[in-house]
């Protein structure tokens, strides 16, 4: 539900904003419709577009007091085809999963695996030290480790109990 700023009664008449409430309703209804159609990780109609279409690797993000760790399941991707960028508080992982191309005299019985390029951005909870980002790819799982920026590491402040 959208919060509509309350404006005094006298403004309604001269600015014509009596319309604003129904308009807001219409707008949020449209937003919901769009979300229903285009939202979700699977895209339109709940299915990815074709086999060569974009796919989204699943992510796992966790943090400790000093570190942020991002894992992604990207099986079958060459490590050199993975590109990692940090800009501000946003980490972007992109790459391409290439399909083996020998299609002569082949019959597919099952075709469940996804191919093509992918791109995912994730908003990090704090700013990070861009110099201290490490990434490794092992057995189809990408592991990105980041250190939080000094100012972002929480400082514990102890509370003294004082007696009167």
């Amino acid at each position, binding site marked *: 539900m959208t919060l509509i700023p309350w404006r005094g009664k006298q403004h309604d008449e001269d600015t014509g904003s009596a319309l604003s409430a129904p308009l807001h309703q219409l707008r949020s209804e449209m937003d919901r419709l769009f979300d229903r159609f285009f939202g979700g990780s699977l895209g339109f109609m709940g299915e990815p577009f074709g086999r060569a279409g974009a796919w989204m690797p699943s992510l796992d993000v966790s943090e400790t007091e000093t570190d942020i760790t991002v894992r992604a399941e990207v099986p079958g991707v060459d490590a050199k085809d993975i590109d990692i960028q940090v800009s501000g508080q946003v980490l972007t992982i992109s790459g391409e999963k290439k399909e083996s191309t020998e299609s002569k005299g082949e019959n597919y019985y099952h075709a469940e695996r996804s191919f093509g390029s992918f791109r995912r951005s994730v908003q990090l909870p704090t700013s990070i030290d861009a110099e201290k980002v490490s990434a490794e790819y092992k*057995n189809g799982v990408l592991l990105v480790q980041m250190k939080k920026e000094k100012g972002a590491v929480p400082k514990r402040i102890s509370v003294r109990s004082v007696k009167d």
Partner: protein
Amino acid sequence: MTTEAIENTEKAELAPTEHTRNVQHYRPNVDIIERASELTVLADMPGASGDSIDVDFENGMLTIHGRVNPREREGATSLLCEYGVGDFYRTFQVSEKIDAGKITAEFHDGVLTLHLPKVEGAKPRKIAVRAK
């Protein structure tokens, strides 16, 4: 091969029925390709390692089982968790005649590749037609 319906491409959870290890099992996504001389099975198994995967072929049943170590997250707080970590398990009924002794398997970058060569007699034989 199996006639099981393919419903989604996400890694699907399997009901923990007949397993003795108390971990979640997932069904790996596979591609199965038939070539003239063999069947090729490609399975996405991210997080498994080559020596933790068992492949069995018995009485026409092909079983893939990859053990995956559970998440280690001591002292860490999870912010986003889009996938589960657990073993990969899937079985197939193979109707083609397979030479079980010649099955080979490779594991690279989280993808298991199985080559199931067909028995000599099951390979298609081309018969040349001579025109008179």
